[in-house]
């Protein structure tokens, strides 16, 4: 491998060119030389349904946020093919360690609208007990690690989780999702190096969606995207059209084989576009042109898959209209249910810090309860939880 040179020739990486793997044209037709992955009608419809349901959930919840019913929201819009296509190529028991914009993965695995809503409204049925901001979902039964806000921390954790899977020898793997912005964090580099050195079955899935909040990709890195970084770690890598669900599916399907059969990590860079704002607190009109968004709207991943399904006569316009109507109705119904449910009980404030509540914390909590009993109107949620009589309209978040 080691070669000797007798002249000072520098290299930049421009010697390599990483192609983008594509299967479907924007018209939903197969590219001439491309082959469709082996997908059954039912499987393809499950994927499409998850993408569509994610889009509709996002539209309705963003609207709900604008109406003041929800404190915060983040959309997956434009990236549904990347997230759902990758998840569909895995076993349903493979671990998913996502960043925060991957609700499509949960949708594909069968997280119900009720479960989404309970988290978004932080009510008493939220698995996370109302402790985290909206969209920080988690599901043990669906093998979806609870989201944490700090970026990229999940990436080395995925390497460690996959190491445990390798030791268990049960044939499972872990996929971790992150954006091209998060790939600038030290944790990304730490993770790729450790995964490669220790040969673990993990898939690093980068959603290169063009923006980290307002910072465009060309101010995030100087190289040709994220993919070339894999060379530095001697890792398998593929770049894929992230708005082409068939390409994402096939790339991830092959990546999983490498991960599980060879115990080797793989990096996938999915080229896509964040069609929506970063979050409900962001306004992209301050940093990018509407015309740029319009060019990407024409590459809508859901439309592209819908066309392909129609060509195959696996989906019809009637079904589309019917499904959209049903999904919108279900979202609204579950939202109404979830927002009426009470907040988690006061004692969830101190549970789960440790496996058992420490005496010192119990002491602080007892003092807090006594204080709330003296000033119940100031702490309506806690007061209700203590069965104290407070006015019903007092149970509103601050500032509303």
């Amino acid at each position: 491998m080691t070669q000797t040179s007798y002249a000072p020739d520098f290299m930049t990486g421009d010697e390599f060119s990483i192609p983008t793997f594509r299967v479907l044209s924007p018209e939903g037709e197969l590219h001439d030389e491309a082959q469709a992955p082996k997908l059954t009608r039912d499987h393809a419809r499950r994927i499409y349904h998850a993408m569509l349901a994610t889009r509709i959930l996002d539209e309705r919840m963003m609207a709900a946020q604008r109406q003041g019913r929800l404190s915060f929201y983040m959309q997956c819009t434009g990236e549904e093919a990347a997230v759902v296509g990758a998840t569909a190529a895995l076993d349903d028991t493979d671990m998913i360690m996502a960043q925060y914009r991957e609700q499509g993965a949960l949708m594909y695995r069968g997280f119900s609208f009720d479960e989404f809503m309970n988290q978004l409204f932080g009510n008493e049925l939220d698995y996370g007990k109302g402790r985290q901001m909206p969209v920080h979902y988690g599901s043990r039964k669906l093998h979806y690690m609870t989201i944490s806000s700090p970026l990229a921390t999940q990436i080395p954790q995925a390497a460690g989780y996959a190491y445990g899977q390798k030791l268990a020898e049960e044939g499972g793997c872990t996929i971790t999702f992150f954006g091209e912005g998060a790939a600038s964090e030290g944790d990304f580099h730490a993770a790729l190096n450790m995964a490669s050195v220790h040969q673990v079955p993990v898939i690093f899935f980068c959603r290169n969606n063009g923006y980290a909040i307002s910072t465009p990709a060309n101010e995030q890195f100087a190289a040709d995207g994220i993919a070339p970084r894999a060379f530095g770690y001697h890792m398998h890598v593929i770049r894929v059209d992230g708005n082409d669900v068939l390409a994402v599916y096939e790339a991830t399907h092959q990546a999983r084989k490498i991960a599980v059969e060879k115990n080797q990590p793989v990096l996938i860079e999915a080229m896509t576009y964040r069609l929506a704002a970063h979050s409900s607190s962001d306004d992209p009109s301050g940093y990018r042109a509407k015309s740029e968004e319009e060019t990407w709207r024409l590459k809508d991943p859901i439309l592209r898959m819908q066309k392909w399904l129609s060509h195959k006569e696996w989906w019809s316009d009637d079904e589309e209209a019917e499904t959209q109507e049903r999904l919108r109705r279900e979202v609204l119904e579950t939202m109404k249910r979830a927002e009426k449910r009470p907040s988690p009980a006061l004692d969830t404030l101190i549970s789960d810090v440790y496996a058992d509540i420490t005496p010192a914390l119990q002491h602080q909590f007892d003092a807090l309860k006594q204080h709330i009993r003296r000033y119940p109107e100031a702490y309506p949620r806690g007061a209700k939880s203590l069965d104290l009589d407070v006015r019903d309209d007092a149970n509103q978040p601050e500032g509303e």
Partner: protein
Amino acid sequence: MPTMNMLQAINNALGIAMAEDEKVVCFGEDVGVFGGVFRATSHLQEKYGKARCFNTPLVEQGIIGFANGLAAQGGVPVAEIQFADYIFPAFDQIVNETAKFRYRSGDLFNVGGLTIRTPYGGGIHGGLYHSQSPEAYFAHTPGLKVVMPRNPYQAKGLLLAAIRDPDPVIFFEPKRLYRASTGEVPEEDYQLPIGEAEITKEGTDVTVVGWGAQMEVIDKAVALAEEAGIACEVIDLRSLLPWDADTVAESVLKTGRLVITHEAPLTGGFAGEIATTIQERCFLYLESPIARVTGLDTPFPLTLEKEYFPDHLKIFEAIQHSVNF
């Protein structure tokens, strides 16, 4: 009963944990075939294989990130950070991830299997970056447990407890005592309780509290005090998080006087927390101001280490001052 130094006791504890549970995995920089720069993991790779005791790349945030993931999967990682001075690249993984894993997921997931071992403290001519005592940073983080043993017997029993504890534990090892501290240590398995202080010497005039390597310094100071006719009650806190306020408060209710000592700088040090709690609980019983004998508010020095150090003479002087107030 065999005599061991602290490294042998730690190595012995790790061996017991690995033999008992195949989910226990030890890793860190130079931890594998070399057995760690201090040799705490000697022969573990030989005995339990490369999959369960291995070197990692030189990346602390990666080591703890990897350990968090492995623990979340159900593993029992014992991750070594080579010096506590180098734990800071992993601060985010420890403070934002390890500590909050169970709480933020509503107990869907946890990293309770994780133990982080790291040598801390001065006295080895290590200067700024091989001497620090960063325990107070971590004691400020709910969700972590922080344990600091004083001798080989304590190290073995507390480390076994830490590995089996259902919560993540940072185990700070006093590296100055690694070889200097020897004592009788049972070969067999035993555990010492996390969160419980130990009264190592009873007395009536003044309570002296410390932890880790500082206990040895306290013993020297107390010997001087005894010669001067002062009866000291000595408490080894052993755990800083959670810490055993009851034992300290009971002692101070009896003696009316408290001296606290640690190597770390004064401002924001853990002695401040103890002093506040004890004045809340023992206010009417205090005969003199609570005293803190600590490092200075400077980075850890090199050539002037002796001057910086909260040594036995400084502690002795504080004891005398407290009694004669």
